[in-house]
């Protein structure tokens, strides 16, 4: 952020406590940040000892198990063989194994490495698809996660993506500029619109106390209809002479370039996502603004008492969150689907981002890992649907189950009859 966020005379306390060595609040913040290598490994050990990491692994295992049951239960052969399972159990179990292993190996082929092909470049192509899908998930996850850190729940990812995508798309095909200007301008406009859309929720919360969950949910729909309307106006996004709510394709000067050559779909959006991870990490753990965000998130009353402007923090953090989700929308419009702005440009990333942020525990690096995992699920899910005829929606189920189980470690412990965690 800018100089504005450097310690100012109005916020002497805020300035002082961010110095890396003093102040009781810093103890908390350092633990929170979990950045130092030693600190991290120590906390990792502690987590495993306390059984929390184990609960996480078991949560993923449980979710995959439920997914397997769903695959098996809806498989024709499995159901047929189940009819005579007492007579010939081997038939049933081999059908069971075939359907489940078939699904997961198809996912592996679609997400990481396709061993059925000969060309090494093509064999690794699925991994690049995973990264392509992970890019917007990471960006969206950061947008939801940074709001979580201020104790704000940003469900408005969809609206922020739609509005930002529409704005970036408008710049992308209505203006005629050289690439060096066109692409950055389109990205910037998208981010600004996302920031404005997110900022509305923050501002309303700051000024009137309106709960951001309600406001962002409602803004999703307002954004949707706003984009819908824009797609019916030629001076905005409508394709002349077409009745479909879809804009013309983007100019080549506004499309995010492919980073691994034309053979692969991976575009600059993923690099932007990595940059965003670094920026958000720095912002949260090293900047005054991040300190304020975390302080407000931990306890807004205490934050206000120590001189932090809580309302302004809400507004600013929602603007940052909106700009990150806006970037996810830009990533779609100018990268993944550059054939034109449409109403489904968000591709449910706005909601997936919530699960990414929850799985990543609102930490930038955690979000990076969670985004890669869910990106792999997405890439693999499409291959699974194509080759095994198993609906890609299974991924949604597994994803949401993981988050649910992760959110309640005591439940997972109870299911596996692990000893209850000691009170801390």
């Amino acid at each position, binding site marked *: 952020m800018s100089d504005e966020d450097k310690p100012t005379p109005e916020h002497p306390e805020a300035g002082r406590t961010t110095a890396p060595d003093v102040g009781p609040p810093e103890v908390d913040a350092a633990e929170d940040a979990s950045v130092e290598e030693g600190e991290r490994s120590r906390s990792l050990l502690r987590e495993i000892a306390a059984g929390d990491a184990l609960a996480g692994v078991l949560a993923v295992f449980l979710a995959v198990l439920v997914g397997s049951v769903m695959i098996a239960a809806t498989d024709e052969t499995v159901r047929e063989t189940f009819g005579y399972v007492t007579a010939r159990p081997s038939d049933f179990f081999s059908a069971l194994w075939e359907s489940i292993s078939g699904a997961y190996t198809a996912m592996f082929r679609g997400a990481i490495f396709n061993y059925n092909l000969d060309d090494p470049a093509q064999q690794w192509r699925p991994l690049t698809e995973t990264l392509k899908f992970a890019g917007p998930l990471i960006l969206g996850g950061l947008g939801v996660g940074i709001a*979580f850190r201020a104790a704000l729940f940003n469900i408005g990812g969809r609206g922020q993506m739609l509005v930002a995508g529409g704005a970036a798309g408008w710049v992308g095909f209505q203006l005629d500029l050289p690439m060096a200007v066109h692409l950055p301008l389109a990205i910037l406009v998208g981010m600004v619109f996302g920031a404005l859309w997110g900022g509305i929720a923050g501002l309303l919360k700051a000024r009137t*106390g309106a709960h951001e969950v*309600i406001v962002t949910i*409602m803004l999703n729909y307002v954004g949707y209809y706003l984009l819908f309307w824009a797609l019916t106006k030629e001076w905005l996004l409508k394709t002349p002479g077409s009745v479909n709510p879809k804009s013309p394709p983007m100019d080549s000067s506004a499309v995010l370039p492919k980073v691994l050559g034309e053979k692969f779909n991976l575009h600059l959006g993923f690099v932007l996502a990595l940059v965003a991870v670094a920026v958000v990490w720095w912002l949260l753990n090293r900047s005054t603004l991040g300190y304020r965000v975390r302080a407000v998130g931990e306890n807004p009353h205490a934050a206000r008492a120590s001189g932090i402007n809580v309302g302004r923090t809400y507004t600013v953090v929602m603007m940052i969150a909106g700009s990150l989700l806006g970037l996810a929308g830009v990533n779609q419009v100018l990268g993944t689907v550059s054939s034109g702005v449409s109403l489904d440009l968000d591709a449910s990333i706005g909601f997936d981002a*919530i699960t990414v942020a929850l799985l990543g525990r*609102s930490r930038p690096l955690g979000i990076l890992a969670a985004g890669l995992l869910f990106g792999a699920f997405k890439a693999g899910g499409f291959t699974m649907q194509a080759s095994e005829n198993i609906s890609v929606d299974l991924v949604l189920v597994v994803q949401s189950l993981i988050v*649910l189980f992760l959110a309640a470690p005591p439940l997972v412990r109870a299911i596996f009859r692990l000893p209850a965690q000691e009170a801390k």
Partner: protein
Amino acid sequence: MSTATDNPTPDSGGLAPDTVVTPTAGSGARKLPVVLGVLVLGLAIVLLRSSHSGDTTFRLAAETDFVTLPDVVVPSGPTAWVMVVICLALTAEAVRRMLGHLRQPMWIPIAFAVAWMIGFLSWAAADSRILIVSLLGGAVALAVPLVFGALGGVLGERAGVVNIAIEGQLLLGAFAAAIAASTTGSPWAGLVAAAVAGALVALVLGLFAITYFVDQVIVGVVLNVLVLGLTNFMFRQVLAPNAESLNSPEGFSRLPIPILGDIPLIGPLLFRQTPLVYVLYAVVALVAWALYRTRWGLRVRAVGEHPKAADTVGIKVNRTRYRTILLAGAIAGMGGAYYSLVSVAAFNREMTGGAGYIALAAVIFGKWDPIRATLAALLFGFATNLQGVLSSIGSPVPSQFMLMLPYLVTILAVAGLVGRSRPPAADGVPYRKQ
């Protein structure tokens, strides 16, 4: 080590306005005149910019009334202006009350809304005909799932459990209703199955939110995604290949009530609907009565407002919450039956299309009261139906803006511009017995 779930909403759980930044109360009285003024100004500007000449016909009668009401034909321009004047008078009254520091009574915004709507309609439908019966009757029909969902939301939140999962309950209800009605051949079995499905979602919500203290908003959102994935998956894998046996339910058909249905205007509006609508009337009345007039209702409200006090006098807080949200889930689930048994008579992917979120909006706009939430849901149904009617007569207002209206109104409501909404005090706060 902090878990993912204690990051959001640290001490003020649920959907309560943030106490840190909440301005002083009582600002609603000052905001009403502003809102009314803006609305009437907007209407006047619209009238000035494009004056339609000609007449507007309001058709009040349906085909089979006892007495056929005559059509009301009015000159559109003058009528609209008369309504503007009436609206101005009402705004002036609101201003007078604001200056005199008096309460703003409910009738001012209601009368204003009616006058404004008549003025707007006579302008928008110049030289054509507005079928009042189909405009309002369609609104009732469209509002059915919203009212069911909103009632479920109100019940849950009065007991202190935020229910964002209304959308999931509607969707799973629609899914279960289609299958049950197809296999049994009876739409009533479908309705029961829908209620069970809604309660099932509520059970999961309760397990995480009440027993394991997971943030209720998060559970709700994730449950919506879960149900969406589940129904999409099952639809593609099971329902679509076996559409004839599993997804061709016999829907509810219209069932006019003999005498009540023949009353002019009201009859076709309220009593020539599907049985599901009659069930809805009963549920609305029952919930409103039970919540305020029975011991059970008192307990539910006590648990939602001050669980500790309720516990002290011997009410089992979490058991009450479980029972209430199961009931609430069943009610919301029944709303789902509207989609697969009335609207389309088959289940389809994502067929609720975010109605659960509108129902949630109705809960808030209706200030957590069953009757007001029902009215809010009806209002949202009206806005949706109005959009359809206006676009069919070629109205100059883009339909997208009409569809936006419920959401905008809700944002204004939570921002305190249209009366302040105060949720139950313990809404969204899990209760841990000490």
